[in-house]
């Protein structure tokens, strides 16, 4: 601790990064809640996969990355997009199929690309983003930058053969990549245990000599710490890391899923571990923020998301001439 520790300004400076994490998780939660409501009122076309409950994974990992670092996301990707810097109005516009969306409303929720913020896409193919993240890492490595890439995927993708191929190559080429598995217990309506062999998920990284760890995916600080360790290794040329975070999705596989396969008690138990109040309590206990301050932060974030949603709802749909644009570069 330096001398400044004694000055009154210090708690604020110390609190700022935590409040940023908290605000980011609140933002994602508020965004997903708005998306859920829009879906319920019939305004969202197609399939909508929400990530409420899993915010700590996206926020913890992305907070360890630089804006120039790359992520590849999956079908449950709104949180990843926002945590990596996406504009919520453009993201919601894409989800609603509007022309101001990231893909002119031609991609939808599962196909959002925001390369200006290092996001090379949500993905409609389970496991599809994993090689793309490794490819971005190869690109950073061969172009001689110290860039890092992270690939997010669900527990369901643990059983894609593609993952094993890519883990092997990431290890032999020492690619600066983080493989981030969000284990929310289910792949669609199927419990992960019923379709997955082996006692340990991280063993799937370890078999390739990739440093691998389990983290509490409901604890953003634990996720961030694991991601920071992995990023430091990657930047130092020490290669890939494999992180499995245990987490839970509060909603169904997609909005509108009746969730008969879930156990009520289980769902309630997970709500008690909710990453947002958990970090809030931590800040209050450590005297880094007051309950009132946190309350105000929540309101501020919600208002900003409401504004963004309003803008997205007012956006124009794509025109017929947008249909044929951008087939080829």
């Amino acid at each position, binding site marked *: 601790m330096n001398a400044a520790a004694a000055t009154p300004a210090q708690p604020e400076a110390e609190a700022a990064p935590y409040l940023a994490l908290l605000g980011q998780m609140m933002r994602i939660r508020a965004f997903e809640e708005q998306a859920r409501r829009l879906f319920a009122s019939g305004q969202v076309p197609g399939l909508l996969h929400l990530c409420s409950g899993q915010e700590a994974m996206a926020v913890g990992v992305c907070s360890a990355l630089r804006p120039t670092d790359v992520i590849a996301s999956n079908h449950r990707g709104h949180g990843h997009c926002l945590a990596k810097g996406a504009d919520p109005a453009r993201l919601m516009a894409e989800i609603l199929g509007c022309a101001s969306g990231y893909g002119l409303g031609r991609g939808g929720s599962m196909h959002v690309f925001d390369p200006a913020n290092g996001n090379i896409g949500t993905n409609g193919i389970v496991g599809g983003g994993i090689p793309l993240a490794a490819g971005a890492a*190869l690109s950073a490595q061969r172009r001689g930058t110290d860039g890092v890439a992270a690939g997010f995927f669900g527990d369901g993708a643990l059983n894609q053969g593609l993952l094993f191929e890519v883990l092997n190559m990431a290890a032999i080429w020492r690619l600066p990549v983080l493989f981030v598995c969000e284990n929310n217990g289910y792949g669609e309506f199927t419990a992960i245990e019923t379709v997955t062999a082996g006692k340990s998920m991280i063993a799937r990284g370890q078999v390739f000599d990739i440093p691998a760890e389990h983290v509490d995916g409901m604890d953003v600080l634990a996720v961030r710490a694991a991601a920071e360790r992995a990023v430091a290794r990657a930047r130092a040329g020490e290669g890939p890391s494999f992180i499995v975070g245990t987490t839970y999705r509060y909603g169904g596989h997609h909005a509108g899923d009746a969730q008969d396969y879930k156990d009520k008690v289980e769902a309630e138990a997970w709500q008690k571990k909710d990453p947002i109040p958990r970090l809030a309590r931590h800040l209050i206990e450590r005297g880094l923020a007051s309950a009132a301050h946190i309350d105000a932060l929540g309101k501020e974030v919600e208002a900003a998301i409401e504004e963004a949603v309003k803008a997205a709802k007012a956006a124009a749909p794509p025109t017929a001439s947008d249909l044929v644009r951008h087939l080829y570069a």
Partner: protein
Amino acid sequence: MPEARTDSYRGAVRDALALAMRADANVILMGEDIGEAGGVFKQTEGLFAEFGAARVIDTPISESGAFGIAVGAAMTGLRPVFEVMFGDFITLVMDQLVNQAAKVHYMSAGAMRAPLVLRTAVGIGASLGPQHSQSLHAWAAHVPGLKVVLPADPADAKGLMMAAIDDDNPVVFIEDRNLYTLKGPVPEGPYRVPFGQAAVKRPGRDLSVIATGRMVSIALAAAERAAAQGIEAEIVDPRTLVPLDVATLVRSVQKTGRALVVDGGARAFGAGAEIAATLAEEAFDWLDAPVRRLGAADLPVPFNANLESLILPDARGLAQAMIALVRG
């Protein structure tokens, strides 16, 4: 055009790769055994020595994952040229090719692109059996967002490869093993054969033969036989299936009034079917006879050499088809 020297089709492709790699440090090669070993068919011989392991990357036998990594690298600044050892094996990279590379420019409204070349070798006639002899170029041509190139001679092989590496889209580049030793004049230094420009490889007045890839050589030989019977065939090579130079094809048919399409893939639902249908739509008023279509038999390509030789039309059979189409 710069001065030409004689080179093989294989050498011409290799020359294009070397020139592109010298010009742009972001061009890398990936594939199985392409490094020190120089490739199973020696197409990358010497490149490892010149450019090193960082740019000539030997992959494990993991086509799906390795090609997916190439796609991610292409999305983020590199220009990978990825070798799939046998054309039949593109089945293994289909998801990365079709769902990721082909669609990313459209889905991202132009914010992202996947500038890569998937090069692969096809070829019937070496007793390689059903899983090493099929050409699936029509599959690739069926996917909006991909470009598909089938060079038929050494000069085109070099110029089309240089154009493919320059292209900001995913390009599927189909080489035919039977052509690797084919020699021809190849201009020195870098040059591009633009996509979407068919080449009239032999002028003729009696019928238009639209031939792709290796079938161009066979069609040229057949045209000599037909000429001995007084039939002058015009041989048109589209060179790229996507984009397809419909205008040049139609112009040829306007001149000759007859069209025979010859493609090396299985005939049913193939590239030849697409070209024939296009001519029926675009050149109907000039056609004096229905468009005729030849291709590989709709069968797996068998191992036994005698049976294998029955899969593709040969110069003799093709000449007969030419004569029959003109004499009616």
